[in-house]
């Protein structure tokens, strides 16, 4: 038996000794935390803003713009090929795709309350209407 297992055994024995008191305490705290979580689950996403890194949201916006235009153009091109309406659907879907890209980029930034404090400290009412347009 080496020092490592010896040390672990010591620690475990110590754990065993003071478990009754600390486990009761832990149990109470876990219950309190769970109650809090249940109450909180009603209003999701409103408090993630504070914890999620801003950089992640910044990186999202650019890709959303490009992907919107790309998917719109591809859909238009495909439908044109299929329906033989070249180039009208390509033009329409390019514009719709660009609009969708901008919408997605806007949502990526504002949907989580990431627009530099905008909509962050507001009450339930405002965040409720904010989620409505998503």
């Amino acid at each position: 038996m080496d020092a490592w297992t010896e040390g672990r055994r010591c620690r475990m024995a110590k754990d065993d000794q003071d478990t009754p008191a600390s486990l009761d305490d832990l149990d109470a705290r876990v219950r309190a935390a769970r109650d809090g979580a249940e109450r909180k689950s009603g209003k999701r996403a409103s408090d993630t803003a504070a914890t999620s890194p801003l950089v992640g949201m910044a990186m999202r916006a650019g890709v959303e713009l490009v992907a919107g235009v790309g998917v719109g153009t591809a859909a238009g091109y495909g439908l044109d090929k299929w329906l033989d309406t070249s180039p009208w659907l390509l033009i329409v879907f390019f514009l719709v795709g660009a609009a969708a890209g901008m919408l997605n980029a806007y949502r990526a930034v504002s949907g989580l309350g990431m627009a530099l404090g905008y909509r962050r400290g507001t009450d339930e009412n405002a965040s409720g209407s904010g989620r409505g347009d998503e």
Partner: protein
Amino acid sequence: MASPVEQFKLKPLLPLEVGGLDLSYTTSALWMTITVIGVTAFLTLSMRGGRLVPGRWQSMAEMSYEFIAGMVRETVGNEGRQYFPLVLTLFLFILFGNLMGMIPYAYTFTSQIIVTFAMAFTIFVGVTILGLVKHGTHFFTLFFPSGTPIALAPVLIPIEVISYFVRPVSLSVRLFANMMAGHTMMKVFGGFVVALGIFGVAPMVLIVALTGFEIMVAVLQAYVFAMLTCMYLNDAINLH
């Protein structure tokens, strides 16, 4: 000198062809296997002690568990609890894949668009089916929120439909582009170090900074992927 994109080339390790389909076991598949083994080893070995007061490894395993659990709870709510294993698996798979790609001579499988697209498309199809099963035709109100003037419908519905179909593309392109661009950039600066001789110290310093930045991007992209999966699940489960 090797080209900067040489590192993304797939090398078949075990050539295998079934019915005209190339199913070779490639470097990409090898590193996916290593990642899966790594994640499994990380979670099982670090939780083997299972002590009340966690050690270093157990803390890391518990932290990643709690981080994702908190993310699912806050984004999706209590109904999202049953999808927690999916999000945790995705997060750890991408995180380990990204981070292991930072080891010299390792292959970054997340720099392949087909790998990220396969994951993103699976999520997209799964979430759509989930929404349709849960809400039936009511699911389509996602494309036309209540309270919008009816006159806007011909404009808004195509935009909303396209923006819905953009999801798998933007989700996969984001991860793939970040990983590929980062690794190419490191290789390019690595080439400068060799080419410049003694003056190669300057790009060398840059590479040190870039490596730190790349590790941040690796963690961040795994986080963003998991976060967006949660948000898409939320859209499907709790229609607004």
